[in-house]
């Protein structure tokens, strides 16, 4: 057996048995170092007879490559084993809790206002606002509710002065007045906001939310009113069918006036909207009274239209199964977490109002 073959066999065996990197490096230098066995063989090439030199060189190169490959493989193998061993040692209990996170919430009333705005936006309404403190004229007189009108008794009003000239608005209707005084017809607005009545019991709170609607143009009639509210209710409750009832009522600022009920039933202790034979009043509406139009310098012969007022808190209660109105303003951490919405849940038309 030639020397070369011997070296090869010996080191293949050696490589097989070694398992750490420094041993392999030792082998590497034993073979390929300055005085390594293979290096020495290369130096021998010049001394070999011409006839054998070619073969010797070829054999030597072959063995060199073979051993080098083996060494490289071995190194990778050992490195992998080392890493694996290290990672194995780093193993943690992945069921330990994640870093703390906090989750904010949007109040159901705010969410409902966004839903309402989104629906009315589709049919061309824009959002108007008005101040919470109103004067007596905008809140009552301009709305065809002069002093000494019994309808004023239905609004238990908070006053800010003894003369009863300044008050907390009892409804969002004064925004109608402000809007119409500010601009020229046509008007197509909704006005959501805070409203106040000095009333507090199971179903009333001294502050609550309303959304006002106003559409004034030429030839807007009760059919448009019915169509608009029909559309809104269906969209809002996200149901296919809705039972709705318009019935005559009275508000000083609209004539004819109507109240709207929706059908519901109680199933497993929860309200189900749109079915059943019970009726629930959810809003008041009507054709804007000519006196109101005159008060805001809009010609009632040329222009007419409808207005409505909806209780936002009530809508939210119905849609989201909330029993107690007062809980809305109680700020109970548990309640807010339970009924609140994720801030990323922005109601939109294309994604649907709610998840």
């Amino acid at each position, binding site marked *: 057996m030639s020397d070369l073959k011997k070296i090869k066999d010996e080191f293949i065996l050696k490589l097989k048995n070694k398992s750490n990197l420094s041993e392999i490096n030792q082998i590497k230098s034993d073979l390929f170092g300055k005085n390594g066995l293979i290096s020495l063989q290369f130096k021998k090439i010049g001394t070999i007879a011409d006839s054998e030199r070619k073969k010797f060189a070829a054999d030597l190169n072959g063995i060199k490559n073979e051993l080098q490959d083996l060494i490289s493989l071995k190194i990778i193998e050992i490195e992998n084993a080392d890493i694996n061993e290290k990672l194995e040692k780093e193993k943690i209990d992945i069921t330990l809790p994640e870093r703390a996170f906090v989750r*904010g919430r949007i*109040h159901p009333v705010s969410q409902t206002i966004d839903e309402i705005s989104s629906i009315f936006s589709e049919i*061309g309404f824009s959002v108007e606002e008005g101040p919470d403190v109103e004067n007596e004229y905008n809140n009552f007189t301009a709305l065809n509710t002069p002093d000494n*009108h019994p309808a004023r008794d239905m609004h238990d009003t908070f006053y800010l002065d003894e003369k009863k000239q300044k008050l907390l608005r009892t409804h969002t209707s004064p925004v109608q007045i402000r809007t119409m005084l500010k601009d020229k017809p046509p008007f*197509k607005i909704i006005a959501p906001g805070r409203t106040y009545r000095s009333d507090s019991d199971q179903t009333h709170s001294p502050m609550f939310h309303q959304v006002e609607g106003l559409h004034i143009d030429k030839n807007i009639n009760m059919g448009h009113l019915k169509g608009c509210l029909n559309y809104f209710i269906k969209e809002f409750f996200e149901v296919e069918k809705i039972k709705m009832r318009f019935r*005559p009522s009275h508000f000083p600022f609209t004539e004819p*006036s109507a109240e709207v009920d929706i059908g519901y039933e109680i199933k497993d202790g929860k309200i189900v909207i749109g079915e059943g034979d019970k009726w629930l009043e959810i809003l008041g509406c009507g054709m804007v009274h000519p006196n109101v139009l005159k008060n805001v310098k809009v010609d009632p012969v040329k222009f007419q239209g409808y207005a409505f007022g909806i209780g936002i808190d009530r809508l939210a209660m119905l849609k989201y199964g909330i029993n107690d109105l007062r809980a809305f303003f109680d700020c109970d951490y548990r309640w807010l977490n339970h009924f609140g919405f994720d801030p990323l849940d922005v109601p939109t038309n294309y994604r649907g109002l709610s998840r």
Partner: protein
Amino acid sequence: MKITFDWIQDHLKTNLKEKHLLKQLTNIGLEVESVESLSVDNELLKIAKIIKAEKHPNADRLKVCDVDVGEKEVKKVVCGATNAREGLITIYAPPGAIIPKTKTKLTTAKIRGVTSYGMLCSEYELNLSEESEGITELSTKYRKSIGKSYFSKSKSNLIDLSITPNRPDCLGVRGIARDLAASGFGKLLELKEKKIKSKTKQTLKIKIKKEKNQGCNAFGSCLITNVKNTESPQWLKDKLISIGQKPISAIVDITNYVMLDINRPLHAYDADKIEKDIIVRDSNSGEEFTALDNKNYKLDKGMCVISDHKGILGLGGIIGGTRSGTELDTKNILLESAYFDPKSIRNTAKKLNLDTDAKFRFERGIDPLSIESGLNRAALLIKEICGGEVSKIDIQETKVYKNQTIKFDTNLFEKISGFKISTKKMIKILENLGFKTKKDKKYLKLTIPSWRPDISQEIDIVEELVRISGYDKIETIDPIKKRFKSTLTQTQKLFHFLQRSIASKGYLEVITWSFTDSNYNNKFKGDKKEIKIVNPISSELGVLRNSIFSNLCMSLSKNLDRGFKDISIFEIGPIFEGPNPGEQSTVVCGLSAGKKNRLSWIDDERNVDVFDVKRDVVQTLVEAGYNSDKFFIDSETPNYYHPGKSGRLFLNSGKDQVAAYFGEIHPNIIKVLDIKTESLVGFEIFLDNLKIPKKTLNDQKKIFQFSDYQKSERDFAFIVNKDVSSQDLINAISVVNNKLISNIRVFDVYEGENIPENKKSVAISVTIQSSEKTLTDNDLEKINKLIIETVENKTGAKIRS
């Protein structure tokens, strides 16, 4: 307004059933609030007499009564009423009966060791009145009826209607029947009105004083002499009981009956107690009288009173006085049927805080032409039941009523309602409602019935026609999906953005009242003035809030007391600067309490601090589109913040309007309000002070440019006086070369060992990069030097060697 189908049928001939009636009432705008079955439930409620009443052996305030309920066996009933006494005739509810008010079913119960078989009921419990003190007292005339059911066996249910304030005519059963008939529900029966045929004159002189704004303009009356006030006959008692009223005596019952039937309030005086004449006049300031509610009223000037020579007999159309009230032994009656002006009634009642059935009716407007028919109906009934002689009717009038007319353009109906009906149909509806009609081309000339004070213009006629035709006839016109204007203004968009941006940082949104407790408000009002509510719901909600913090602190405390420790809440809404419309602004206000990483196995626990809220504020504003490089922050904050750990933020160094405050809440406030938390920080972002850019966010963006040349980061440590802010250092560096300096960041602040007293070391990392070339060492050295020089010159800093 309470009615029964039976009573309706006194005025209406119909073949339809009660369930149809209920539906139809609501359809024509007479909303059915509730339907109660009186007869079935109430049959068990019996007239009974207390035979013996003894003190309860184990309770001072209770009595044990032996009650005769018309059976062989006497019932033992435990009763807490002070008026439970031997001989009293009252109403007994046996075990199994349902109490009308509470709807609870009675059972045999042991009360303090004594078994009670049933209960003796108060008027309140029986829905007869609001009187809840003591048990019902029936007159001795009921002794013959012991054991009989108190409530009649009428099969008719009690229907409660909600009558809108514009429909006084429907406060009488006949008005309701008229509306029903007009809507096709039956035929209105004609009132067979009998007239008083008398030769005797009404001898009591009545005079309405001629005064400006006199509240009474017609006073009708008749005298009924030698009557014997008695118990009402069964039919009348049944009628009143059927709608939940308690029969009192024939005269009172009759006046009530006429009022309920045709909405004609009447008043009966004991004529013998009237001193000479009756004068209807304005009250003088300070005049007093005792009303039938046993209260003494002191009057202002100008209230409409009925008086005699001795003084006031009653407040016209509101309440009578005790002095001239009828009693069981009254012999001679003066019956009043008058017209009082709604405004005058309302003013007086409001000033005196008085609410009566008569007031409720007069302030809505009584049919001015019903004076005579009311007197006829009542006087003849009194004569029939109580005997006596009726005088002729006397009517004093200062103003003669004339029916109003209106010219109605029939085209207006379709224009408003969106559907068509024929003129013939219009005429039919209006005539059934009592209008007189005359056709004149496209117009109808209408005479308005005297009982409809709500009708004065054409639109009122449209309402009548739509209402009676039925709202279901209105066709639904689908809305057009077209937008002419953007839904939200920029400010409104910002409102919604800030709301969700803050919430996304872990804050729970709350909604609290716009009013608050002045004690809390005072802590946070800063230099704003307090705005009082004249009539608050309670003293704790007595002022409009000058800041949202007051309510947030209360809410936070409540939640802390519930055992929650680490809470962040916020509200976006109005605060008030003055009592006038518009003196308000919108604020996003938040509070964060407790710790970060409480009980964390991995991170260090620490208190929430000012830099947590600073991040929330700055990040929110950046997310909203404002450039943080331009923000200017100083430490001038209102006194409810910790003076050393709070800040004020402006959107730019122009410092025109405060964009936000943030910081720790002042420790004194936390102490005084007793907020139990380790740390409390808060912020206020003033929406109205955030400038709305004219350009959209997209338009504000510059062309997208970036540099691929190498950037280098240089660190500097400066020693500066403690009062130099890091913002000053950053500002100084940023002006050195804004082309090359792309980022400046404070990464360490150190005070203490090796640093002189009153000084601090601030370490800053500056990123330098050119958009034109790779900077050489020389370039960098130059800019380094410039940075050091500038900072040293501008801030008095020394570079730390």
